């Protein structure tokens, strides 16, 4: 069928086209439905793409029929397909959840623009994953970022505005750094196509312009993925954003930034250059370790659960950075597994908090007291997500921790293994603070609420169950991460 040839572009087009449709129809319910259907279809396309990639290998799609390197190429390999599934799958679940939460948290006038912007954000994120052209990546990055600034600013608390503005300033600086870096690369290679770049760059590795470009790009992406100490925008943004947006951003946006980092470091440049010739491996390991310890410590003292999870996200991104810095096959596998598994746990946790906010009005620690009595399913899903975050065996979090420790031990870097484990112990502390409050405190007598509506429970339960499923059956995730990291280690040539 001819439509299946256009899957790579359909993944982006569906949400992109649905966005103006929302504005045109201008009904709150309808725009929710359109958004949900668009992301569901986009997810379906991603699944088809993954199957196609697994059968035929990397897919190259020429946008508008112009042949690369002149035209823009969309290139989908295993890693892209993996990320597409993650982004669109989580977006679908979050949207399933969104209806009531958005109706309550967003003022009526803004619901339609909210969904339209959300669609743009999804389109941008998927675009980054499929694009085989570095400038195109920048454009999609900015589409998703500008949409995110807007989405965050729609939070109920007025501090959301301030948070969004700070994110905007830092995000734009990051994006401009990337733009400058791409400019430097283009200056010497004359191409923007990833494959072409990968072919031409090795001869220029000693060139100072190229090295400067590499540095600009790395720092720019570091800002976008909240790599410690460039994470300052993240805690406030996640805390004050509407629940749905926190869930979507925490689960996907930073992960897509990690994907960009992997693409640039390993595909466009090569492993030897990025992590060996340049001292980036040490930098990533040092920053990653600091993030794990310091952000986890800060998380322990938070009383707002959303902020607590935001700091925990900074720590978890530290794990990923550390794993990439190890620069070996198992390290990359671990990083990719953690991208996926962390999306599952943070998705489950932020959605549960969303349900809590929907019923109780806020996500403060003291409001969660005795939550188990009123909202047992939400409480259990927080528990499961939390256990997975700690890395209790039998959950998805354990699998990625296992691979990470194995990767450090392979290199004989046992102090890093200890740091990873210490991070888990700190996670026990901050998660247990929540668990104790939810399960073992008596609820404030004034509160009498019931479980959230089914449409919120279902996506939450799916994510919580996925945390356990992918902790026991890892054929899908481990195989994918393994083959994707094999591709990355081999460099651009596929």
């Amino acid at each position, binding site marked *: 069928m001819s439509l299946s040839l256009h899957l790579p572009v359909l993944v982006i087009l569906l949400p992109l086209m649905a966005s103006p449709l929302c504005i045109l129809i201008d009904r709150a319910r309808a725009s929710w439905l359109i958004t949900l259907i668009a992301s569901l279809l986009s997810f379906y396309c991603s699944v088809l793409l993954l199957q196609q990639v697994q059968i035929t290998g990397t897919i190259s799609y020429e946008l508008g029929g112009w042949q690369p390197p002149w035209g823009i190429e969309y290139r989908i390999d295993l890693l892209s397909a993996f990320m597409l599934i993650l982004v669109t799958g989580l977006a679908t679940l979050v949207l399933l959840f969104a209806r009531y939460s958005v109706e309550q948290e967003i003022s009526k006038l803004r619901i339609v623009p909210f969904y339209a912007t959300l669609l743009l954000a999804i389109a941008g994120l998927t675009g980054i994953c499929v694009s085989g052209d570095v400038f195109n990546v920048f454009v999609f990055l900015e589409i998703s970022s500008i949409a995110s600034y807007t989405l965050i600013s729609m939070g109920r608390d007025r501090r959301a505005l*301030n948070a969004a503005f700070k994110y905007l300033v830092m995000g734009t*600086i990051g994006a401009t750094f990337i733009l400058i870096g791409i400019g430097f690369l283009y200056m010497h290679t004359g191409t923007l196509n990833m494959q072409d770049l990968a072919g031409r760059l090795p001869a220029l590795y000693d060139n100072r312009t190229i090295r400067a470009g590499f540095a600009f790009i790395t720092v720019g992406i570091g800002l976008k993925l909240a790599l410690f100490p460039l994470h300052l925008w993240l805690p406030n943004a996640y805390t004050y954003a509407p629940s749905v947006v926190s869930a979507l951003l925490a689960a996907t946006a930073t992960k897509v930034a990690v994907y960009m980092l992997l693409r640039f470091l390993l595909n466009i440049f090569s492993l030897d250059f990025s992590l060996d010739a340049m001292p980036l491996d040490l930098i990533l390991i040092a920053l990653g370790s600091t993030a794990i310890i310091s952000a986890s410590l800060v998380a322990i003292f938070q009383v707002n659960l959303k902020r607590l999870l935001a700091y925990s996200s900074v720590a978890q991104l530290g794990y990923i950075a550390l794993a990439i810095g190890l620069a070996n096959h198992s390290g990359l596998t671990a990083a990719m597994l953690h991208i996926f598994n962390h999306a599952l746990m943070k998705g489950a946790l932020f959605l549960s908090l969303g349900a809590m906010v929907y019923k109780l009005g806020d996500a403060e620690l003291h409001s969660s007291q005795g939550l188990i009595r009123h909202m047992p399913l939400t409480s259990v899903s927080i528990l499961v997500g939390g256990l997975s975050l700690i890395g209790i065996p039998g959950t998805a979090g354990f699998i990625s921790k296992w691979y990470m420790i194995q990767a450090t031990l392979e290199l004989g870097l046992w102090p890093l293994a200890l740091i990873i484990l210490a991070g888990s112990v700190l996670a026990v502390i901050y998660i247990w603070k929540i668990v104790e409050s939810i399960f073992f405190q008596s609820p404030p007598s004034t509160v009498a609420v019931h479980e959230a509506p089914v449409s919120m429970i279902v996506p939450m339960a799916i994510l919580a169950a996925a945390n356990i499923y992918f902790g026991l059956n890892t054929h899908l995730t481990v195989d994918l991460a393994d083959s994707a990291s094999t591709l990355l280690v081999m460099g651009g040539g596929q």
Partner: protein
Amino acid sequence: MSHFPGLFNYWIVIFLMMAGFYVVISQGNLVKKIIGLSLFQASAFILYISEANVDGGHVPILEEGITLYSNPLPHVLILTAIVVSVSTTAVGLALIVRIKETYGTVEEDELQEIDNAQDEADTPDQKQQIAEEKEI
């Protein structure tokens, strides 16, 4: 120093970039921050346009007898980047308008103070609550 005149454009780029960056960091007024940000982005545009220039190259319009053209691609790219920059500025300014509406100020330190006060207003409440519970 023989490179200096030839690299004139790039010196401008660096100057604009640093000036913009400095404004973003040092200014407390949000509008000024956005202006700095625009300056910062503009420097990147000049970088692209400068690198498009080919020595002795002609304007990239097909014409007989001319074989050497300047590279048109960066111009096109930078058009897109300008659009991105304009939308960022627009969103930033829109945010400032709403900040002014809700906070009544656009000075960063004042905003921070208001936020801090609000944070504090949130926390002692809890401490009190916890203390009350203990008494019970």
